[in-house]
């Protein structure tokens, strides 16, 4: 078998274009996917037309909230490009300089203050269906954040206004008398006066006023808490039930390495077996010089070895930029080795079924790409029945098991490494047997 190893390495070394493609293509794909997963979506570039007059405020009781606070909240949520007019915003959308525009109307303060109708923002956008969906979703999220921030400002102003009523003193608003008594002090003051009055109609009337003042002070105190609750009625407390919390960037590394491992291994193994057929050497080899099992093992292991080295180099290289736990390097190697051998078995099965290198390469691509995509579909993203189909497909191919094994090895994520390794071993046997059948059928 060592003669075949040497021969295949020599052929690989002389196929420079193939060698370059086998190395560069998966790395490029891996990096693209890695970046796509690890980078949170960039803030959408949005033109902001603020038509509100400078210094415009929303009055909340004795308090005032500047309308510019709202614009500030919107600016914080997007990659804001301030523009002077709606026309300029439309022009920037059409030229592609911005994805969308938000027009803050001049009457926003009056509408918010009116308490009878809410203010309306105008959102303008362009692009194809996918872009529209992305922009709409990003903007809705950004504006929801801005609305929440602005409503908190108003809630705080309302709370301050209530506190002023309760505590008294100088309310600070224009025209308000100074040194006012607070609602909290009124019951005690009234009770002192009531105590000095003889029983009668006047005392009874004051006692009724005292009861109301006490009730009003208590309820106004409570209303501050209610206001805070209204601004954010539900808080979220999250808890991970099992496994370790996997940072998105290290998961992206695992995805990128698994994809590279799969592409290099499957393409090389499939191409290696198909090349023997294309060169017409398969029949010469199989007439007693090597057994079918030896030939398949050689092709699979050679591809697995090359892919293993490349994948480990990628992992080590990316480790320079992303924090990885190097004390677990032994587990990485085990996961990579099991994954590589399973992909090698899948590759030789494809190669045994295809009759030529081009067909084998095409088949390997057509199978590998959707497998990677399916394995990354989140559980909640599709309906239950479709998820069942996706899971069944992912289960019978090695990509997902390899991803889980590598994630467990690198990030200590669940499911546990041992289960994934067993799964990979079973798939290696399955695809090895299929490859043997394919080679037997064709020759």
């Amino acid at each position: 078998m060592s003669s075949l190893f040497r021969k295949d390495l020599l052929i690989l070394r002389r196929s420079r274009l193939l060698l370059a493609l086998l190395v560069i293509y998966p790395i490029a794909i891996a990096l693209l996917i890695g970046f796509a997963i690890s980078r949170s979506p960039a803030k959408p570039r949005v033109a902001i037309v603020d038509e509100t007059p400078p210094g415009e405020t929303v009055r909340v009781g004795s308090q005032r909230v500047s309308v510019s606070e709202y614009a500030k909240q919107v600016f914080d949520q997007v990659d804001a490009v301030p523009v002077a007019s709606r026309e300029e915003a439309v022009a920037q959308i059409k030229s592609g300089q911005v994805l969308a525009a938000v027009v803050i109307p001049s009457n926003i303060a009056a509408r918010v203050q009116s308490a009878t109708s809410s203010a309306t923002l105008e959102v303008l956008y362009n692009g194809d269906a996918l872009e529209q969906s992305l922009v709409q979703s990003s903007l809705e999220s950004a504006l929801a954040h801005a609305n929440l921030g602005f409503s908190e400002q108003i809630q705080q102003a309302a709370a301050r206004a209530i506190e002023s009523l309760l505590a008294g003193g100088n309310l600070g608003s224009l025209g308000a008398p100074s040194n006012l008594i607070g609602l909290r002090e009124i019951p005690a003051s009234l009770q002192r006066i009531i105590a000095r009055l003889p029983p009668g109609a006047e005392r009874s009337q004051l006692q009724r006023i005292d009861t109301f003042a006490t009730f009003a002070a208590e309820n106004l105190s409570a209303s501050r808490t209610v206001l805070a609750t209204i601004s954010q009625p539900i808080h979220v407390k999250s808890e991970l039930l099992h496994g370790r919390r996997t940072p998105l960037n290290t998961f992206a590394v695992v995805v990128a390495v698994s994809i590279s491992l799969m592409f290099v291994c499957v393409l090389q193994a499939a191409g290696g077996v198909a090349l023997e057929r294309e060169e017409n050497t398969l029949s010469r080899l199989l007439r007693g010089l090597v057994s079918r099992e030896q030939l398949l093992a050689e092709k699979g292991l050679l591809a697995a070895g090359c892919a293993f080295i490349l994948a480990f180099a990628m992992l080590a290289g990316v480790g320079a930029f992303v924090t990885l736990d190097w004390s677990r390097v032994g587990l990485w190697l085990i996961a990579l080795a099991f994954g590589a051998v399973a992909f090698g078995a899948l590759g030789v099965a494809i190669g045994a079924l295809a009759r030529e290198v081009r067909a084998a390469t095409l088949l390997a691509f057509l199978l590998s790409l959707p497998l990677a995509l399916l394995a990354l579909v989140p559980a909640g993203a599709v309906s239950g029945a479709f998820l069942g189909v996706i899971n069944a497909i992912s289960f019978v191919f090695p990509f997902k098991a390899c991803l889980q094994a590598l994630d467990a090895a690198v990030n200590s994520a669940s499911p546990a490494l041992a289960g994934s390794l067993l799964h990979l071993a079973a798939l290696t046997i399955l695809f090895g047997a299929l490859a043997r059948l394919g080679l037997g059928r064709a020759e």
Partner: protein
Amino acid sequence: MSAVLRVQELAKRYGELQALADVSFEVSAGEIVAIVGPNGAGKTTLLSIIAGIHDASAGSVSVGPEQVGWAPQQAALYSKLSVAENLELFARLERIPDGRAAVERMLEQTGLKGREHERVGRLSGGNRQRVNVALGLIADPPLLALDEPSSALDPGQRERLWEFIESLAAAGRTILFATHNIAEVQRHATRMLLLADGRMLFDGPPAELPAMVPGGDLEQRLVAFLAEHGQPAGAGA
């Protein structure tokens, strides 16, 4: 003279198709045996069973694959490797004790000395066929099975290849070759096996066939002979 190869009641079936039926013959050392017949007659099937590529459905072949050198119709070579690298690889796989010497011997015999470092993919069709035959001969087998060895060669290349094959026979090797080229049979074969629909119709020296069918050259007589045995004229040989 003792038989180098003995084929007895050989049959091969691919599902419903009977590719070979009841084929028996013996071949002695130094013979050059042509296997001719229309397309689908079973020529390649017969050679591939003798070479150990396929198993027979019934019957027996007296030699193992290690005693047969195999040169398929389409050259079975690694085009990215040089002539010497191809020969060295198969010398190692054949477990030849002195592989280096075997490679040198084959380079000398095939006239490829001086071109051993050229990649096979860059060789002419004739030279590729020489390397193809050389790979079959690397283990020094007593019997060489060639499937249409000259089909892709120009007349000059064909001439040189036959000089080489005849020199092998002169040195005592037995040659079995399948062909459609009747002129080649007439010139080089000492014996002809005629197959049609997997059955042997004729076994003897090519010169004996004209005696059985009157008129015309060997090719015309062969066509007439096949027609007599129920083979349509368009089937060719």
